[in-house]
């Protein structure tokens, strides 16, 4: 009897008796994919509304003249005016220097943390992360207090006889760098620490067993294996620096003008949304260009995707 039923069902849905439920299973798979897509649609919608639309709009108004007609005047001005070139050069100089100093300080720090026992590492990590939990503005003004002419650092140093005249530590490049390095350091330390933690100790034992001195083992095994984390961290720091505003504005004392500051000026002082948008577009394009170039150069997809394995 049941055999007869099966035959009828198969006949009615027009299915091949050798491939039972083929159509139905295919349909189930399609519906499942559809439901999964449905689950991420709120996030996609959010990205569309707060990311894609504003950037497109930004892009659009950067090509509008003050009269509302299509024009390249905002871009033309960037090419003609020397000050814009200088601003972009300053932005890149500050970003590269900050990244470089972060690498110099952050790599040994991450190495130190990765070698500590778990509990001690957790405590030290809190001190690294502490800056994350206080307001950016508070930290920046704190540096102002510490570094200014009659600030704590200068006073103490003179009392101790380290230098005689108060050093100009703030309202210039060094002040900007000190503040930015302080704020950026965790962004470098975290990925580097992560990549160091997963380096199996046996690699170093093997190197040592094969005749490598501790320095050789570090140089030829540990360092290359921690490189993915270092590249990732340096890239994050560099890209964040490119768009940085508060710290250079406060600690640079008007001498360090970054792209983000000129954008603010364009809007707040000159009410020129077109010029501000054009700057934003160029900064975005440069950042994307750098990301793309470094991903080609450093095989970033493998670095970020594979975590070094």
């Amino acid at each position, binding site marked *: 009897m049941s055999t007869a039923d099966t035959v009828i069902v198969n006949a009615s849905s027009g299915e091949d008796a050798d491939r039972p439920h083929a159509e139905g299973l295919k349909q189930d798979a399609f519906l499942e994919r559809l439901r999964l897509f449905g689950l991420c649609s709120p996030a996609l919608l959010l990205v569309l509304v707060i990311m894609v639309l504003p950037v497109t709009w930004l892009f659009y108004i950067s090509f509008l003249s003050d009269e509302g007609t299509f024009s390249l005047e905002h871009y033309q001005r960037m090419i003609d005016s020397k000050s814009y070139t200088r601003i972009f050069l300053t932005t890149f100089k500050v970003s590269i220097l900050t990244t470089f100093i972060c690498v110099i300080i952050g790599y040994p720090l991450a190495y130190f943390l990765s070698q500590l026992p778990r509990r001690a590492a957790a405590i030290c990590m809190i001190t690294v992360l502490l800056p994350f939990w206080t307001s950016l503005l508070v930290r920046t003004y704190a540096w102002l207090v510490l570094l200014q002419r009659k600030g704590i650092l200068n006073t103490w140093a003179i009392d101790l006889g380290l230098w005689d005249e108060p050093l100009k530590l703030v309202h210039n490049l060094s002040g900007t760098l000190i503040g930015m390095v302080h704020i950026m350091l965790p962004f470098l330390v975290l990925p580097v620490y992560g990549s160091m933690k997963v380096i*199996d100790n*046996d*690699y170093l*034992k*093997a*190197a*040592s*067993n*094969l*005749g*490598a*001195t*501790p320095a*050789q*083992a570090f140089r*030829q*095994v540990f360092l*290359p*294996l921690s490189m993915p984390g270092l590249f990732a961290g340096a890239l994050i720091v560099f890209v964040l620096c490119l768009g940085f505003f508060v710290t250079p504005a406060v600690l640079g004392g008007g001498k360090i003008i970054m792209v983000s500051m000129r954008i603010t000026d364009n809007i707040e002082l000159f009410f020129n949304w077109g010029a501000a948008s054009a700057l934003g577009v160029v900064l975005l394009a440069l950042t994307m260009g750098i990301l793309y170039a470094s991903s080609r150069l450093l095989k970033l997809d493998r670095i970020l995707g594979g975590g*070094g*394995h």
Partner: protein
Amino acid sequence: MNENRQRGEALPIFISNTTKTYGDVFALDSVSLDIKSGEFMTLLGPSGSGKTTLLMVLAGFTRPDHGSVKFGDREVVRTPPHKRDVGMVFQNYALFPHMTVAANVGFPLKLRGVASAEMADRVEGALETVQLGGYGARRIDQLSGGQKQRVALARAIVFEPRILLMDEPLSALDKKLREHMQIELRHLHDKLGMTTVYVTHDQREALTMSDRIAVINHGKLMQLDKPRQIYDFPSNKFVADFIGESTFLPVEVTGGKASYNGTQLKTAINPSSAASYDLLMRPERVSLVNGRTPRDTNVFKGTVSDLVFQGEAFLMYATLSDGTNVAVRGSTLRDTMANLPTVGSSVTLGLHKDDTVLISDAGA
């Protein structure tokens, strides 16, 4: 360099009074062990027995509390690992993932300043030794488990160390490949002739490969002997239990003769009456007796409680009159299978007098 290549002689290893404690736990408890030059020595023991600690002491990664380790005449206990010049195969291979196969194998040569032309030759030679000729350009993540194993081995022997250490190198491989590699490693050892110290928890692997086996438990050397001797005449209950399958029957010793359940046993070696003893029964040494009792054989009467077909063997459990369950294993020859007693029927078990081994309880 040439000097490096010519010193091919294997070295003996002398370990004496070596102790390593972690807190109150003795990982090594005053271990003394001499390994002959060119010997394949296996350190066998359960996990946590101290066998790996001993290997790490040999490699220089673990610093003992006290003790002496000599490679030939050279005292090395305070020598750092990179100056010991021993090859080592790690359990997880520890192949450098950022280097190719050739760079991995060439690594120890590069550190020793071998010229690049000679290095290429020797790398290829080592790869050919492990049957991976032509694999030099591969990345490590392109290799199968068995191939990684071989590369790790090639890297450990390419600089021609006189001592080779292996830490459970086959444990990550599947059974078939593992058994194949056991034979291959043994052949390689015979070919290269370096003193080999091999750590495993797999007793069959130890029996298959070793010249001698050092059974270790709780940081102490339990027995040191040839595989056959260890299997046939374990010197204490731990070794008897750890190696092979075993059933223990309590025996009484009176006047230098052992008896079980009132019946005197024929034994190859008579016990000294001092200690208490157990009779060791290996499942495959127990025979099923039909009819007349063969000469020089002890017999035990029991009831079949379980009978399992395992393919190449059958496994039978027989309950003796005192309630002890004895395992019996036999090959599944057609005649044997036809005459096997059924569950619940009575059975007579035979144990040849040479297989009737008494194990002293002392020291277990």
